C-alpha cells in the first residue's frame, strides 16, 4: 500500500498545480508565494539538520574499513579503503560522494544447488550514479533561467547535454538518463519481494516525486511547448525579490513548479537529506588511526586512579618483608612504570 499512497500524494500535488494554474489567484500563489516558502523551508531545514549533526558527539574514531590497515612497512596498506591520514580520508570521501564507492560493493545473495552464492550486482550502483549525475546536470542547466547573462559554463553544459542534436529543441541526454534510471530504481523496489517488503512510504514518495518532476519537465520541453522567455522573466523576478507571474504559462508549468517546491520542502525532513548527511558519516570520514594515535573521549570525567606501580610503591617494603616478589626492579623508577602501564 505504501507505493499507492505515495503515488496518490504525488498525483494530488500535480493536480493541485494543474488546477491552480488555471486560476489567477492560484497562479499568484504558485508562482509568487509558494516558491519562497519552499526555499525558506529548504534552507532552514537543511541548516537545522546539519547543525544537529554537527553537535552530535563523535568521541571515538569509528571508521568502517574495507582493506588492509596501515601496519608494518612491508605490508601494503589500502590507503583509500582503509585511510590512516586525512588525505586518504579525502580520497575516500571523494570516491564515496562522486562515484558511490560503497554502493559498488552491492552483491546479490542466491541459493544455488544448496550453496549460498554471492554475485556482483552493479545495476543499483549504475542507475543510482546515472540518476544523481543527470540530476546535477539538470539542476545546473536550470541556472540559465535564474542568471542573466547566462554564464558560459551553463551554455557549455547545455551544448554537451544536447550533443547528438536530435530533433528541435534538441533532446537532452540527461532527460533520457534521469527517467530511465528512476524507472529502474522504482521497478527494482517492485520486483524484488525482499526489497519491496522493507520499502516505506518515503522510499516511494521520493521516487514518484522526482519522476513526476522529470515527466512534467519533458512534457513542457518536447510536447506541450512553453515560452521560455516568460519562465525566465518569472525566475529572474523571484531572484530579484520582485516576483510577477507572467501570462501565457500553461498549467503544466505550475504543476512542475509545485512539484519542485514540494521536493525542496520535503528534502530536509526525509531520507533525501543524505545529500548533506553523506559528508558527515563518521564511519566514512574518520581516519583509521586508533592504533597509532590515542583518542581520548573529550567528555571523560576525571577518574581517580591508583595504578599498580603506585600500589607497589606504597606497599613495597611490606611485600618484600613478606617475601612476595615485586615487579619493579630496584631503582628502575620510570622505566618500570612505563612497562607496567
Amino acid at each position, binding site marked *: 500500500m505504501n507505493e499507492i499512497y505515495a503515488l496518490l500524494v504525488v498525483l494530488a500535488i500535480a493536480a493541485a498545480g494543474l488546477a491552480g494554474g488555471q486560476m489567477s489567484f492560484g497562479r499568484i500563489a504558485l508562482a509568487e508565494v509558494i516558491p519562497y516558502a519552499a526555499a525558506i523551508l*529548504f*534552507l532552514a531545514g*537543511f*541548516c537545522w539538520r*546539519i547543525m544537529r*549533526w*554537527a553537535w552530535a558527539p*563523535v568521541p571515538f574514531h569509528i571508521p568502517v574499513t574495507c582493506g588492509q590497515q596501515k601496519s608494518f612497512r612491508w605490508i601494503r596498506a589500502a590507503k583509500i579503503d582503509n585511510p590512516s591520514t586525512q588525505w586518504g580520508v579525502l580520497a575516500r570521501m571523494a570516491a564515496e560522494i562522486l562515484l558511490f564507492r560503497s554502493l559498488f560493493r552491492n552483491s546479490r545473495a542466491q541459493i544455488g544447488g544448496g550453496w549460498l552464492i554471492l554475485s556482483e550486482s552493479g545495476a543499483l550502483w549504475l542507475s543510482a550514479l546515472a540518476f544523481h549525475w543527470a540530476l546535477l546536470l539538470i539542476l545546473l542547466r536550470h*541556472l*540559465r*533561467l*535564474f*542568471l*542573466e*547573462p*547566462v554564464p558560459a559554463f*551553463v*551554455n557549455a553544459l*547545455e*551544448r554537451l547535454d*544536447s550533443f547528438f*542534436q536530435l*530533433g*528541435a*529543441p*534538441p533532446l537532452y541526454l540527461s532527460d533520457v538518463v534521469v527517467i530511465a534510471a528512476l524507472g529502474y530504481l522504482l521497478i527494482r523496489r517492485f520486483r524484488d519481494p525482499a526489497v519491496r517488503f522493507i520499502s516505506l512510504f518515503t522510499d516511494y514518495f521520493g521516487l514518484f516525486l522526482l519522476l513526476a518532476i522529470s515527466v512534467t519537465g519533458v512534457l513542457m520541453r518536447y510536447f506541450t*511547448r*512553453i*515560452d*521560455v*522567455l516568460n519562465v*525566465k*522573466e518569472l*525566475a*529572474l*523576478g523571484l*531572484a*530579484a*525579490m*520582485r516576483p510577477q507571474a507572467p501570462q*501565457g504559462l500553461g498549467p503544466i508549468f505550475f504543476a512542475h513548479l509545485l512539484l519542485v517546491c514540494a521536493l525542496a520542502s520535503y528534502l530536509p525532513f526525509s531520507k533525501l537529506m543524505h545529500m*548533506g548527511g553523506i*559528508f*558527515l558519516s563518521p564511519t566514512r570520514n574518520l581516519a583509521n588511526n586508533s592504533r597509532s594515535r590515542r583518542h581520548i573521549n*573529550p567528555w571523560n570525567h576525571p577518574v581517580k586512579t591508583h595504578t599498580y606501580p603506585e600500589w607497589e610503591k606504597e606497599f613495597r617494603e611490606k611485600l618484600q618483608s613478606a617475601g612476595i616478589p615485586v615487579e619493579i626492579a630496584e631503582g628502575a623508577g620510570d622505566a618500570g612504570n612505563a612497562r607496567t602501564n
Partner: protein
Amino acid sequence: MRDRVWIFIGLAVFVAAFTAPFWHVHAKTSARQPDLVLPANQKECVAPASTMRDAHMQMLLNWREDVVRRGDRRYVAFDGKVYEKSLTHTCLGCHSKAAFCDRCHEYSGVSGPYCWNCHSDPQATVTRSRP
C-alpha cells in the same frame, strides 16, 4: 570539536551556492525580456506570434526536411498566404539574426542552434563584403 569549523565552512559554501541567483548583480537590473527589433516591412509572420515563440524550432526542422529530402519549398500559412520554405530568404528576409534571433537565444541560454553551421546571415555577409 575541531571538525565543526569544516562543517560550518561547507554549510556556508552550500548556502552561498544555493542563493547565488539572489546575489547575482545583474538579476536586479535586467529582469525584463530582451528588446526585439521587429520587421518594418511586414506585419504578419508565417504563423501567429505565440506559435512562433513556442515552436519555431520545430517548424524550421520540418522545413529543412521538406526542402532537403523532398524538394518541397511551398509553405501555405495559417491565413492562406504562400511562403517559400527558406531560412535565408523568408525568415531572414524580414528578421535580423543579431537583433532578433540572437537576443532571445542569448537571454534564455539556448546557445546551440546549429542553423549557422550551413546558413549565413545575409546582413552580416553584405556588410562584410563592402570594403
